[in-house]
């Protein structure tokens, strides 16, 4: 019958088309060539202009394309010479004079010298600089202490600070201090971010929007040429897709592996690297009002949260329990004597009873994700469960990251008793200075959203910032940590161990405590 014929015909056609669609992919082998490393990034970079970006994700590219005057010594957070061969600091700590490396060329062929250094900092800091409009430069306040940059001679440059500022060198090692080519900025203007030129081991080759940023080996690198021929950075925002790509062989190196996916990579085909970094994950407690105005209640919260379970189970061991406000990665400033609050619900209950609190009810701001926030919703949920177990009544309010910051940074007063927060810093000064001093309350332009105030801590931090001697600074920080630990303005939860997975073809890969991704010595077979 006719009817049968045509339906069969069309079904056949449909089946054929379906088979073709499947057949398309049969011989896919997601192999990447040797010598080319494909890195799975978490997002498209904003720009490749180090002065203009803020995200760790972008730093992972920039650190391989540019050099700064100084850099962190491998495996530590201590500075060592880079484009500057050496430096001297004046007695009062307000003048830094750098001797620059000779014969370094930018990828665009222009020479690196003192004028370029001055150009770099003036561009960022001087509003009347002809290239200031190539910004904005959101992190320029890292160098807000710089009063002037003076060219002494072609190979010598002097920074004048308006006050002693101990973290200055450390900030220079931060990506915001990377040196860009003056010629390239002059040539491309605001488009420099897409046409970058630095002195680093890799030079920029190509940026295919939303697909890849490709950098190639700089054979003339002053510190010895890289082993890789090229690096491809692929932005893959979704962690799951990133994991799938890694499993399917589409990328060689994956950063920020979701904790739950780690178990997939426990085979010979992959290598998992870990490195604790200058990161601390904590809960801001509102010390101004509500139950947490009472120190006993704050301590009770610290006892109530099962931090070991959080880092081992929720975060699958990708973090360690934090003891205080300073992460152990700042080894020289870290107080080894500090012990984390143990998980002790009974003690917490006792403290609550002592404070006279019956079922204190608290509002808890949780974010959905954000820089360094690990797995904030799961963490928040688990913390809520822990707190409720000792008698708190916790109401969670979740915010998407930017709204969250908009709610938390102006202070928790009148809104919440508790908020998640995480910081990654490059100097032990940064976090406590910005978030624990009385002078850093939100209304004074700081990040002390929980209104913690202790004059002793204020004094210690002020002194540490101006001391030029690292030994002295270490003492001051250690004392500060002891006091803060006891005052418990935060619930100290975790220090993140950054992780990365590489395929077995990748050798010589190592994560840095700075969380930067340095690929110069990496080999891919």
């Amino acid at each position: 019958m006719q009817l049968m014929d045509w339906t069969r015909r069309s079904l056949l056609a449909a089946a054929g088309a379906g088979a073709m669609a499947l057949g398309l992919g049969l011989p896919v082998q997601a192999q990447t060539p040797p010598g080319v490393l494909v890195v799975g990034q978490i997002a498209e970079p904003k720009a490749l202009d180090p002065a203009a970006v803020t995200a760790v994700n972008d730093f992972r590219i920039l650190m391989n394309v540019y050099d700064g005057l100084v850099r962190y010594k491998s495996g530590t957070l201590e500075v060592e010479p880079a484009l500057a061969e050496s430096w001297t600091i004046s007695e009062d700590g307000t003048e830094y004079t750098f001797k620059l490396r000779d014969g370094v060329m930018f990828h665009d062929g222009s020479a690196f010298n003192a004028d370029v250094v001055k150009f770099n900092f003036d561009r960022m800091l001087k509003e009347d600089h002809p290239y200031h409009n190539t910004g904005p430069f959101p992190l320029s306040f890292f160098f807000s202490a710089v009063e002037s940059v003076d060219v002494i001679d072609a190979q010598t440059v002097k920074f004048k600070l308006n006050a002693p500022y101990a973290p200055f060198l450390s900030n220079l090692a931060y990506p915001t201090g990377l040196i860009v080519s003056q010629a390239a900025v002059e040539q491309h203007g605001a488009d420099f971010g897409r046409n970058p030129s630095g002195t680093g081991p890799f030079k920029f080759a190509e940026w295919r929007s939303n697909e890849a940023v490709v950098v190639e080996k700089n054979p003339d690198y002053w510190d010895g040429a890289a082993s890789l021929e090229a690096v491809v950075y692929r932005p893959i925002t979704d962690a799951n897709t990133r994991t799938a790509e890694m499993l399917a062989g589409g990328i060689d190196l994956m950063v920020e592996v979701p904790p739950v996916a780690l178990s997939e990579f426990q085979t010979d085909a992959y290598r998992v690297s870990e490195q604790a970094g200058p990161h601390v994950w904590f809960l801001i407690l509102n010390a101004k009002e509500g139950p947490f105005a009472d120190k006993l209640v704050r301590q009770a919260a610290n006892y109530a949260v099962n931090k070991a379970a959080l880092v081992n189970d929720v975060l699958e061991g990708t973090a360690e329990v934090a003891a205080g406000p300073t992460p152990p990665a700042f080894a020289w400033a870290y107080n080894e004597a500090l012990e984390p609050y143990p998980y002790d619900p009974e003690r917490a209950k006792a403290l609550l009873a002592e404070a006279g609190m019956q079922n204190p009810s608290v509002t808890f701001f949780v974010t959905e994700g954000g820089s360094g926030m690990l797995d904030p919703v799961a963490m928040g949920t688990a913390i809520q469960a822990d707190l409720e177990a000792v008698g708190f009544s916790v109401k969670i309010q979740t915010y998407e990251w930017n709204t969250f910051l908009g709610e938390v940074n102006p202070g928790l007063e009148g809104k919440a008793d508790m908020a998640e927060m995480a910081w990654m810093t490059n100097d032990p000064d940064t976090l406590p200075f910005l978030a624990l001093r009385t002078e850093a309350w939100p209304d004074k332009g700081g990040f002390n959203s929980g209104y913690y105030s202790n004059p002793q801590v204020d004094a210690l931090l002020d002194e540490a910032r101006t001391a030029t001697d690292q030994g002295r600074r270490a003492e001051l920080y250690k004392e500060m940590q002891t006091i803060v630990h006891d005052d418990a303005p935060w619930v100290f939860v975790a220090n993140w161990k950054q992780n990365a997975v590489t395929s077995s073809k990748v050798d010589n890969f190592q994560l840095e405590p700075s969380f930067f991704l340095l690929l110069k010595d990496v080999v891919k077979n």
Partner: protein
Amino acid sequence: MRLFLRLLARNRLALAGAVVLGFVVLLVLMTPVLPLAEPNITNTADRFQRPFTPGHLLGTDHLGRDLLSRLLWGTRLSLAVGFSAAVIAATIGAAIGIVAGYFGGRTDNLIMRGVDMLMAFPYILLALAIVAALGPGLMNALIAVAAVNVPFFARNIRGITVGIAHKEFVDAAKLSGMGHGRIILSEILPNVLPVIVIAMSTTVGWMILETAGLSFLGLGSQPPQADLGSMLGEARAALITSPHTSVVPGVMILIIVMSINLLGDGVRDALDPRLRSGALTRPMAATLVDRDSVPEPSGDGILTLDGIETQFHVGDRIYRAVGGVSLSVGPGECLGLIGESGSGKSVTALSIMGLVASPPGVITGGAARYRGRDLIGMPYRELRRLRGDRIAYIFQDPLATLHPLYRVGDQLAEAIRCHHAIGRAEAHDRAIELLKSVRIPNPESRARSYPHEMSGGMRQRVGIAMALANDPDVIIADEPTTALDVTVQAQILSLLNDLRRDRGLAIVFITHDFGVVAQLCDRVAVMYAGRIVEEGPTAEILARPAHPYTSRLIDCVPELGGGRRELAAIPGLPPSVDDLPAGCAFAPRCDKKQSSCAVGEVALKPRDGRAVRCLYPDWRPA
């Protein structure tokens, strides 16, 4: 309402959906009393337990919470949210749509422009932006999902309302003194309500999916509260390592949405009056034939019908539309088939070439022979070869019976090319000739017209031309002039008459108008309740009807020139063909009825070239 439930229950798929959904709803209603683990108690050491581990039937999630418990609590929430979002969107959307559709004009224009704007806005982004503005949370997600769906409801309901607002009962309500508000509430709303319910029931599932989508983007419920979307979203990170945490809520969404959709389809089918009447079933290429025996040939005409019986099977009712009709027509002869609506005259005509829509139509008996070959039960291929080639039809309403999207020339050419392997150009030339033969002025340019561009009379000429396309032997004309004005009707009738004489056509002419029969037909058969009650030469029957029905029907027709007068009427109504009385079907309305009329079958008795189905016929001398 009872009918609705019965129809719903008859739809097996909908029933399955209802059962599954009912089970799920029952389960989630019982959730608070079921012996389940607390949904929000975390036990991180126990995380990612596989399904069927003791104590955790479906395993645990990334925080060691019991998945079964969270699933049920989450389903509870998701169902509530999906349902409320659908109700909110439907209520607001319907209100907007009704207002726009009822008032029309500028109000309508303004509202629909706004709706267009919202619809042009990518809806996920709109929802996302709303949630971003309101802050995340299931309540806000609900608002967002409802808000982005309002325009779709508004547009849908507006369309329906426009149709209803132009119905005559709305005008009647206005004349009965109702104000706008009252008309909207008591006239429009009850008629739009089924559509709203249909739209809603088919949307609940969609709403659940959309809310899940927002949760997937991290904008749904607040932890630790579980809803299906946020469960899926939270589990996504562990998709590769512990797929069951994703699969459990994913499959639950699938089950719920699918059962809701099945039920929604059932609700739609049950509420849709067209489906209820079986009007949305596909008619097959030829009418179903289910006859036990083939009667012997009786007549000797070119087309002979022997005891044709056609029934409509709707649900468990059987409508005997045609109850054994025998006819015969010879070359050059015009046979009139006359009767009131529901008498079975059109069904008889359509049965001949198997054109009765089936389902629900079934030919249950008799034979229709063309030159001795039985058309009933003939293989489809052969039947198709005869259709339009040897036996052609002219239908009543030429606007509905011509394809609205093809040019009339092409429709004519197609009729030829179906049966003759000739080229496109040749067929086109033939088509123009045909148009000329039915006296259409400017046939060349008319061939390029679409049916809607022609007047009713012109369209019917095209219909006739199409019937003539292959020089058929028999034309079956089913009320071809009923939809036309009298002046045009006269033109068409005279055209048909000329064609019949010129080409020796046999015509079966179906009509309800004695005047038309009188002018055109040689013989006439009168039908009542599916049967022929009287047959014979037209002039004789009109002058001396023997059957009481025939005679009284003729008396009912006012004749021009009679002036102002009382008309004769037949009291009562024709019987319904699914419930025919025993004996003579006309007996209940007949003033000559005897007790014997209601007993036994009344046969069609021939006499002097006429026949009548009456026990007490009125034979008057000529």
